[in-house]
């Protein structure tokens, strides 16, 4: 709250952040926390000379993380002869870390594509970040134009509630834990993961990371996470990890893909049926038999797809798949009896 005797109006958070940013950009020598609280509008009217300013200090800490979230890095420095004395820590924003590099330009076509990329997230998990990003890029003054992408309305599907939390944990290299349902047994186990990246396969989102209990790289399907995603703490701090080399991540991605290549399902499809069409067998020249071979990442996801075409597809192998499809139908029938 602004004190009554002060100023003409109550300064909101956006104005305070803006004043803070301008001040710290200008202060090339840096300012101490006290100097900031005394002089920057939005803090100054609540500052108590020689009094307790802990509420204000917490506000400053929150503002620092708001700025970081939006891409503005506040650098702090403790003068060499004053180690450990945080009263003299100085803060500033380096101009080169603040500004978009002037050498990098965007063409109207490129901005149009980025616009479309942001729109694809509309209402989705990363829509806030994407739209704030595009707002900044629009400041370059380029107008996004490209005739051949007009009439395209893309939408990324992320219906898994855990998506956003995992994405954030990846960006901050934070260790997470969650309850995960084993598709085979239905058992629920708490897993602890150093998340590396998320990928979408056959419409399903996976998180790849280092499973701390198993001590190896593992993939988890987001739709099988049955709890909130929590951050793992150590004392009062959130535990972080060091992201491995890209080559290690690439190898783990390839590993899963190779695994999929080795998993083959053989099906018989009724000729001329919807399934025939869906699997594009009508496009195969001189198709004589009704056999279809598919590679799959996940047996359970494939079983789901096949259940849609219940009477048009017969599973030849693996046997496990045929059983899964059938067990699923049995369960549905029982649950709706």
């Amino acid at each position, binding site marked *: 709250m602004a004190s009554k005797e002060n100023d003409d109006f109550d300064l909101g*958070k956006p*104005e305070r952040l803006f004043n803070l940013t301008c001040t710290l950009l200008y202060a090339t020598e840096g300012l101490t926390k006290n100097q900031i609280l005394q*002089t920057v509008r939005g803090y100054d009217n609540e500052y108590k000379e020689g009094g307790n300013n802990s509420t204000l200090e917490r506000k400053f800490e929150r503002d620092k993380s708001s700025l970081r*979230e939006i891409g503005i890095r506040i650098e702090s420095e403790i003068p060499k002869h004053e180690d450990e004395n945080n009263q003299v820590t100085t803060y500033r924003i380096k101009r080169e870390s603040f500004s978009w590099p002037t050498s990098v330009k965007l063409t109207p076509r490129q901005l149009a594509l980025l616009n479309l990329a942001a729109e694809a997230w509309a209402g989705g998990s990363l829509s806030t970040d994407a739209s704030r990003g595009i707002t900044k890029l629009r400041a370059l003054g380029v107008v996004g134009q490209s005739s051949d992408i007009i009439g395209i309305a893309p939408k990324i599907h992320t219906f898994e509630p855990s998506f956003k939390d995992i994405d954030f944990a990846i960006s901050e290299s934070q260790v997470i834990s969650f309850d995960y349902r084993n598709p085979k047994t239905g058992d629920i186990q708490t897993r602890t993961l150093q998340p590396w990246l998320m990928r979408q396969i056959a419409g399903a989102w996976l998180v790849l990371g280092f499973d701390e209990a198993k001590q190896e790289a593992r993939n988890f399907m987001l739709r099988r996470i049955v709890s909130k995603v929590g951050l793992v703490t150590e004392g009062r701090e959130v535990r972080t990890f060091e992201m491995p080399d890209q080559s290690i991540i690439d190898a783990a991605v390839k590993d899963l893909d190779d695994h999929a290549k080795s998993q083959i399902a053989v099906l018989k499809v009724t000729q001329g049926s919807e399934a025939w069409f869906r699997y594009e067998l009508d496009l195969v020249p001189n198709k004589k038999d009704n056999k279809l071979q598919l590679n799959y990442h996940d047996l359970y996801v494939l079983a789901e797809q096949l259940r849609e075409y*219940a009477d048009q597809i017969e599973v030849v192998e693996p046997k496990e798949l045929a059983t899964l499809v059938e067990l699923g139908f049995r369960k*549905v029938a029982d649950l709706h009896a």
Partner: protein
Amino acid sequence: MPDEIKLDDTDRFNLMLALTGLLVDGEEYTVEELVDHFKVSKKEIVKAVKMISFTDLMKSNQDGSYEVNYDDLDDGFVSIKYTFNEAIDEVPRLSSRQASALAAGLVYLSSLPGLVENQEIQELQRILAIEDGPEKKKRVLIETGDRDNDLVAIREAMSSGVCITCDYLNLKGETTIGRLLEPLRVDSQGEVIYLRAWCPANKNVRSFRLDRMRNAKPTSDPITQEALDAELVDEIYTSAETDTVVTLEVDPEAYSLIFDFKPVEEPEAVSKSVKRFKIKVGDVRNLGRVIARFGGAARVIAPEIARQSVRDFALNALGERSSNTPKDAE
């Protein structure tokens, strides 16, 4: 036009930074131009410009201000001048989260068959990676799609403003050959791509799944005014008066249903991970395959007729006859 986006404090601050970067000591823009450019309301633009002008750095010994001419602003014109030594006069960088969200959006675009050249995407990702810092790695991977000839034909037709003909397999399993459609928009929803088109035979806008379409070809007939005037709502499914309200319950494995159908009201949490919601369905007989595919992770709670249709679908798939079917049924 998309719905007006509601801005929070961080969005407003972000907008202030962007406006400053664009406007400071530069050209004059009209408020309308800025509304159009930043896709936010007039009120937000005016508010942000005023907030910038309130910046006061006197106490930190920086003598100067951002000057906005209020008379011009009332007349709908915006320009900002500054008298600081070192003011914000540049376009701000993206945060790594912003860069990575845009990069992931681009990956998705490249997964759509034939929309963008991979080279273009790579060039943009390189630019975003500069923003993201040299150490940052890809956070999101999306499979890339194969080229789809039907989509190529549709986009060709759309850019020259003509109709298409195609063969289409409808949800009932019937194929129509040489169907005439007036293409309006291509909607990609996750993995599924729809053509939203005016159907002259039915005189309304319909959605066509591209994976059920074959032999799409542009014709020489221009898209009619009637089609262009048609209202194109964002939802693929539009409900009708005669729809049945169905209550569903889903485990996380079947949350996708909440997005495929637009629930009538906010889903309610039944337990830690189970959600319950109501949807409107045109024909409950179509529910069977939609629900049964999840093998138990999705359940119909009510009405009984909808439960029965799911049960029948499952029993039929198991090669068993529903107990409700009369023994003498043909």
